[in-house]
């Protein structure tokens, strides 16, 4: 098991290297560049060219890459062109925000999705099932920014129940310890700050949860249906086991295997959805960094963010494979 994990972790290095080369080349092949964005509308072509020379962006791409790599090995990923902050400290600020949002959304999706999917399977082809399926179709079809806009319009503008965007109300002077706003409030015993953070989290988390929720519902439903028709369930029922035991130990446990795979695959989509959700809700996490970074051609920032995203994705997939081994004793990791 340990050897397996170590091997998988070692595989991450070449993956990230190849990705960084591709990313580097792709970013620099985009028309326009950071200098124009950095200097604004009043810049002349001459001052843009001068800045490119100053930044070394007029050098051949491979030279730029080797320099970048040389600095990256020492842990220097450069500073954001937009803010002038080291990109690592930007990531340090933004990552907790995104994790808070993505984890909340994923929890919402799992906690609501598995029961809904299970119930739909149990009452297959009855009205409840049909309603659920229709709901999942809508959930997948509605674009994130539209849904976010509508939710805000309803809950923030019309009813004034929830804040429209941001992570913190103005006037809440929260102390940041870990960067996870809800947790920080508990740690510093500033419970009003925790509460404020939760309140700000509701709408974006619900918005981001819709697509994974729909997917989890459908997978759970299909998977439960499969298991319900399998021989061992029939055997268990025939043996006269209590229905609760059958459902829990036999049906759900087996049905959750494909679901856990799906949850792993959802992580990538979740990160993509987070970009849009964060833009709509002015969340100030990784998604915001990416959106702004692309707009302003902030090479150092984008390079760091994408590599980090890839790293997270790879690690999550590793966790999924490990959870497989735990759920299904037949799976042996080598």
């Amino acid at each position, binding site marked *: 098991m340990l050897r397996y994990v170590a091997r998988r972790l070692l595989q991450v290095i070449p993956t990230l290297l190849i990705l960084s080369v591709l990313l580097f080349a792709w970013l620099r092949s985009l*028309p326009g560049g*950071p200098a*124009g*964005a950095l*200097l*604004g*509308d*009043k810049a*002349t*072509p001459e*001052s843009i060219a*001068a800045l490119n*020379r*100053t*930044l*070394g962006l007029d050098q051949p791409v491979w030279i730029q890459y080797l320099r970048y790599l040389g*600095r990256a090995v020492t842990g220097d990923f*450069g*500073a*954001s062109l937009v*803010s*002038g*902050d*080291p990109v690592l400290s930007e990531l340090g*600020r933004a990552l907790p925000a995104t994790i808070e949002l993505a984890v909340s959304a994923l929890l*919402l999706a799992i*906690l*609501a999705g598995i*029961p809904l999917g*299970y*119930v739909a399977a149990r009452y297959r082809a009855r009205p409840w099932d049909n309603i659920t399926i229709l709901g999942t179709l809508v959930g997948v079809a509605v674009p994130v920014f539209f849904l976010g806009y509508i939710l*805000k*319009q309803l809950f923030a*503008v019309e*009813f*004034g*129940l*929830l*804040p*429209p*965007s*941001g*992570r*913190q*109300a*103005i006037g809440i002077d929260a102390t*940041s310890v870990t960067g996870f706003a809800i947790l920080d409030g508990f740690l510093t015993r500033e419970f009003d700050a925790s*509460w*404020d953070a*939760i*309140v700000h989290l*509701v709408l974006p988390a619900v918005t981001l949860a819709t697509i994974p929720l729909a997917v989890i519902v459908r997978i759970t439903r299909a998977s439960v249906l499969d298991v319900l028709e399998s021989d061992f369930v029939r055997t268990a029922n025939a043996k006269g086991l209590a229905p609760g035991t059958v459902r*829990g130990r036999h049906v759900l446990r087996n049905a959750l295997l494909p679901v856990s795979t799906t949850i792993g695959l959802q992580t990538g989509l979740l990160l993509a959805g987070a970009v849009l959700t964060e*833009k*709509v809700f*002015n969340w*100030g996490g990784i998604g915001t960094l990416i959106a702004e970074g692309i707009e*302003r*051609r902030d090479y*150092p920032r984008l390079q760091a963010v994408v590599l980090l995203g890839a790293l997270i994705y790879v690690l999550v997939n590793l966790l999924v494979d490990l959870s497989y081994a735990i759920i299904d004793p037949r799976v042996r990791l080598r």
Partner: protein
Amino acid sequence: MQAKRWATAITAGLLALTMTACAASDRGSGGEDGATGGTFVFGAAGAPKNFDPTFNDDGESFRPARQMFDTLITYKQGTTELEPGLATAWESSPDGKTWTFTLRDGVKFHDGTALDAAAVCANFDRWFQMKGAAAQSQMIYYGDVFEGFAQNEGDASGDPVYKSCTAQDPTTAVLNLNKFKGAFPAAFGLTSFSISSPAALEQYDADAVTQSGDSFTYPAYATEHPTGTGPFRFESFDKANGTITLARNDDYWGEKAKVDKLIFKIIPDENARKQELAAGTIDGYDYPSPADYGTLKEQGNQVLIRDPFSILYVGFNTKNNPALRDLKVRQAIAHAIDRESLVRTKMPEGSAVAQEFVPPTVAGYAQQVTQYPYDPAKAKQLLAEAGQPNLTLNFYYPTEVTRPYMPNPSDLFSAMAANLEAVGITVNPVARPWNGGYKDDVQKAGKHDLHMLGWTGDYNDAGNFVGTFFGREKAEFGPQNPAMFDELAKADAIPDPAGHAAAYEKANADIMSTYLPAVPILTTGPAIVVKDNVQGVIPSPLTDERFYTVSKN
């Protein structure tokens, strides 16, 4: 039925959460005590690069800086006229090379040090003596106005306009220049030339702009300790939440700010700004989309429209297409574009057709210029006379951008392209993203025949418009008549204000009749929107709003 119960419990829990959240959600601080006190929260579209005005040239960085800093000369609120700032009076020698500033007495920087002539000179010397290619490359306005540094590094190459600054006595600073420029005295009011506390500049290492790899890192002065004399002091920049907090400077020399705190909340998404305003979490924001003016007013907001100080033009590039070197062809295109209808159907209220390349409020605006009214028949006739009945032109226009002078570039382009097609010109549309090729193709490579571009003026001088556009040969317009460059350079060099204006009037008239390097399309002013309980926002044509006059009730 466990699962069912579980689902119900979760749903109920979520509902409860939402409902209690509602009860507790903070509705922002309303008006606290009428005319003074309280907090004014303003939605900004982007983060400032940093807070040292010297190294910035964009509106988002200038907005907070304008509240914290003063300049020697300032612009009368809501106009482009000059009025005393830190200097109560200024005069120049007849040759325009020596400027004497009489300074206000008793002004203190936010760190408690005194503003005197030595402090003013220290600022001018700091800019001139700035070291390092990185720092110099970020001083766009200094490079534009003062042209060069004590030691040009990197690609700075101009001969410095600045010579020296002497403190004759504590309240008299004398500035010596190597040559006069038309930008003076108006340019002394530019935010980039804000006066900083020399003690703070030194303490926080203000000049240490360092380059790490392919990016810049700014010193503590620019990121955490900007120290000016303005009506608000810097308090904090919370990067995690994107809020900049400024506090009233109780020792301000002028009219003191009415609100205790001024907060800029960075909200990049236009819709998010609109919804925050509707939800009451911000009190106002900048550059609402013209399409929203109606809705915003219906919701009970004030949409304040700035006086126009921008120009949109359609430019000709004479390099690629010889036909465009013929004045008749350029005049035909000017007559073919229905500018009245563009302004009426595609632009917000407060916009107008531009008859020349400077706004009417600028000294040097010519009352009598050649007019180009919409006249398709005349356009066709001119094309025929020029022997160009079947002209084909590559018309470049930008996408993924919105500017006050072109809220929707594609829309404006379509209308103009239809106008040109109507007089027999074949238009090849070329759409390029603003910062993804458009500016490179047009301003650097000059790949186009026609293009649209605009400019918002910085200060009240014709040179800031026509000098910038047509003062020298550029890839944007291709080869031009050198007489035009000459005429503009001569006008710019006349120190006497009356002679200066007269020379620019003639230049503007000649540009419209003889040279016609582009067609001026329209002039417009962007809006600023605030809630109905906000008073005292004075919209400025230079987008130079000072929020010390603002109060909430």
